[in-house]
């Protein structure tokens, strides 16, 4: 058992009457240690031996996806069978990462559905509250426990052991979806779904790992639709095109931008960046993050379309925003909507006076930051955006609109400062990079890889989003099909050069 204190301070603390807290932490640490040791004995997923199965990996594109689509359409006429095929495919996809988390995933789904069923039968709300608590407890345990222990440690000044639990991939996404369903049940905005479509709503592999965060009523009704219905070839074509678009953005832009941003951020704070390096790092990460996450979204929407399903929009060219408010209407839209509907409005929104508005905004955005990661830099990033939203609201209430170009420049600067906080490992690193951005590390150097940065900027600001492309009613020109197929073929060859790089949002 790990020692609670190395310097005897625990004795003083215990004398203050909080021995029970430390004892419970000791007990918990023993439990976590046992879990971790047992974990080592259970084999992980096939990824350990055969490599990761990401959307852009060859195994996924050349084997998993064709087999899944073929099996799905082979039984397309039977709703139960095709839903079962998708559930099995999704479990294989998730288990490929780490089979040990399948019980957790199924457990949260099963518990949430059972709570919904109890509520249906009893009419009492406590099962729904219990379901929310269970999902929050799972999220808190696997994602935030060490963070919380760190807070307790800093308050009481006693060294406390950490659990170092492995983070189940996608836990933030599927926990939030389950919570939103249970809350909607409380609000009487959701029915009790049969177990199979309910499970599929959470498990559906295109969105399981990193969203978009889908609400039940956006997806469950689609499971009843025959995928062979009218427009099947249009949906398939659009799906292939969107998948290729995301694939190319990930492989040709995001991963290459990572090769620029990562080494520079990793050098800080041991080495202070000069002006050129700091701007290179900041711009590279700014575009990497968008290209990476929007690429994942486009691939997810494209894959879902191959199964005749439509996922919601997640991005709408956020880097053309001329205000912070507009930015949050264009960036990670499914999360923004969730935060708005389940945090900001319940906290008071904007209709209960200025103090309540400030509280709701800062509270919602702080939690939004915390959702991204168990660290204070994420919290401060969220608060930074909360502050930006407040200032933006105040400015707009003056009815003196800023010129669009000036608004865009201010917004981009504001967002990029936030991304430095978001990317930095700690405040020291963030402060160092921000100081370098204003010349604190010297005015030398120049922005590197300018061609790639310009290409990424143009793609970020000019290429329409997935739903914009859908709504543009594209024409089925064969030349586009051939070009897209050649691009996809090249990207398949490119990803063969080394292990595929994770999407950034997988860690959240």
């Amino acid at each position, binding site marked *: 058992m790990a020692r609670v204190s190395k310097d005897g301070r625990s004795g003083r603390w215990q004398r203050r009457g909080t021995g029970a807290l430390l004892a419970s932490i000791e007990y918990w640490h023993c439990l976590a240690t046992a879990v971790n040791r047992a974990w080592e004995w259970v084999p992980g997923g096939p990824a350990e031996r055969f490599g990761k199965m990401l959307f852009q990996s060859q195994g996924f594109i050349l084997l998993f996806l064709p087999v899944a689509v073929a099996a799905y359409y082979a039984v397309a006429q039977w709703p139960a069978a095709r839903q079962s095929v998708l559930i099995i495919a999704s479990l294989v996809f998730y288990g490929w990462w780490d089979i040990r988390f399948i019980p957790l995933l199924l457990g949260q789904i099963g518990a949430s559905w059972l709570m919904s069923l109890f509520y249906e039968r009893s009419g009492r709300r406590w099962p729904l509250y219990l379901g929310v608590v269970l999902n929050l407890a799972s999220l808190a345990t696997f994602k935030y426990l060490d963070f919380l222990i760190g807070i307790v440690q800093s308050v009481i000044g006693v060294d406390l052991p950490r659990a170092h639990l492995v983070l189940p991939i996608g836990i933030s996404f599927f926990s939030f979806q389950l919570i939103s369903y249970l809350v909607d049940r409380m609000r009487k905005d959701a029915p009790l779904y049969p177990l199979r479509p309910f499970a599929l709503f959470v498990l559906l592999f295109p969105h399981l790992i990193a969203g978009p965060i889908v609400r039940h009523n956006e997806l469950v*009704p689609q499971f009843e639709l025959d995928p062979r219905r009218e427009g099947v070839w249009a949906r398939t074509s659009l799906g*292939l*095109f969107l998948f290729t678009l995301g694939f190319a953005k990930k492989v040709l832009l995001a991963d290459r931008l990572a090769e620029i941003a990562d080494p520079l951020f990793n050098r800080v704070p041991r080495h202070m960046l000069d002006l050129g390096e700091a701007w290179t790092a900041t711009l590279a990460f700014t575009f990497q993050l968008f290209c990476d996450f929007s690429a994942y979204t486009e691939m997810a929407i494209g894959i879902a379309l191959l199964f005749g399903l439509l996922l919601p929009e997640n991005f709408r060219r956020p880097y053309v925003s001329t205000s912070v408010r507009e930015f949050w209407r264009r960036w990670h839209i499914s999360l923004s909507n969730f935060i708005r509907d389940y945090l900001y409005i319940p906290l008071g929104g904007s209709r209960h006076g200025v103090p309540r508005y400030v509280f709701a905004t800062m509270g919602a955005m702080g939690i939004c930051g915390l959702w991204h990661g168990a660290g204070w830099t994420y919290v401060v990033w969220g608060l930074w955006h909360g502050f930006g939203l407040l200032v933006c609201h105040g400015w707009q209430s003056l009815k003196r609109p800023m010129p669009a170009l000036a608004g865009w420049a201010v917004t981009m600067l504001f967002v990029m400062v936030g991304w430095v906080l978001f990317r930095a490992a700690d405040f020291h690193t963030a402060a160092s990079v921000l100081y370098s951005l204003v010349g604190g590390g010297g005015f030398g150097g120049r922005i590197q890889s300018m061609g790639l940065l310009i290409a990424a900027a143009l793609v970020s600001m000019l290429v329409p989003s997935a739903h914009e492309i859908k709504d543009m009613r594209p024409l*089925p020109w064969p030349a586009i099909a051939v070009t897209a*197929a050649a691009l*996809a073929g090249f990207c398949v060859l490119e990803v063969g050069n080394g*292990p595929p790089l994770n999407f950034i949002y997988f860690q959240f």
Partner: protein
Amino acid sequence: MKRQAVEIAPGGVEPNETKSADRLWRRFALAYLGVFAGIIGIVYVFIIAVDPYDSGRFASLGLRGLFDGLGRGGHGAAGGSAQSGAAGFGDTDTSQRTGNVALGRSPRFNAAIFGNSHGQLLSPRRLSQATGLAFVQLTVPGANVREQLAMMRWFMRHHSEAGALVLALDERWCVTDPALPLRTPFPFWLYSDSNWVYLANALSTRTLRDSFRRVAFAGGAAAIDSAGYSDYEAGKTWSFKPGKPAPAEGFPARDDRPFQREPDFPGLILLDALLGEIPAKTPVVIVLPPQFYTQLPPAGTGGARFRDYCKWQIALRAERGAGSAFLDFLVDSAIARNPENFMDEEHYRTNVAAMMEAEIAAALNTRRAAEAGHD
């Protein structure tokens, strides 16, 4: 052509797809899938057929082997001229990671040198001359434990009756991290026992590029050194000026922590398994190449005790009978204190390599002498 809405789901765009539009979209999708499958299929078959790294796994197009007949020297050749691996097949580092596939399976050799850049300057030709064996250089710059083990396993898989193995080991074999992390990526799939693993990894722009290079090579492009030798000193100006010691990995050179318990060395445990599969009559010479003395932990420190314990553990692996030996040049000696002997803190020069080769050959020749005496 009239723009048609894409009917997605209830609540989406109005479902006004017509049959003609559906035919056009069907043509679009099939064109995409046909072109995509065609590209991937043709490229894949081409790569497997060309066998870009001369792995010999599948029936290839019968192209000339990457190391056949060109190159200078070869088995038993005089000299030891430095023909950089950079010639014609990418940079040295890349070529050795992939080029060793062909060298490691070549029947022209019956003995091999393994290690990383710390063993790279040992000349296979000089060792061949001195021992009568046919040495090949299979070192890989920057390689840690797992890459070297893969290389050894690949060579032994194709040379079950090897005449000798020379292992140039260093501090990286003393790491205690069970994960045995890599410093740089390595194509383990090329050296895998499984053809399925090879097939699963063979499709990439790099293998496609190297397939074209092999085709060009078959047409007479410049060859790689035929025994794998690469002289990092060649073409460079020697200018080693000892400075402030840099942090070292592996041996905690300047670590004053007390050496409290005997650690496990996962790399050496894996080496045991491999040595256990090698015929007992195959001599194994383990060499610890020298480094400039500032790289060594001062006597009496925890780092020195750690190093000595690891060295002892390494030496145990060389106890295999006549011909096998443990040659420890990683000591604070006159050689280690003379900057003239080094390119930098870690890499010795050819004069030191020649001295090491003489001792390696002497050790190996004891076996020949023992066998002659036995006869």
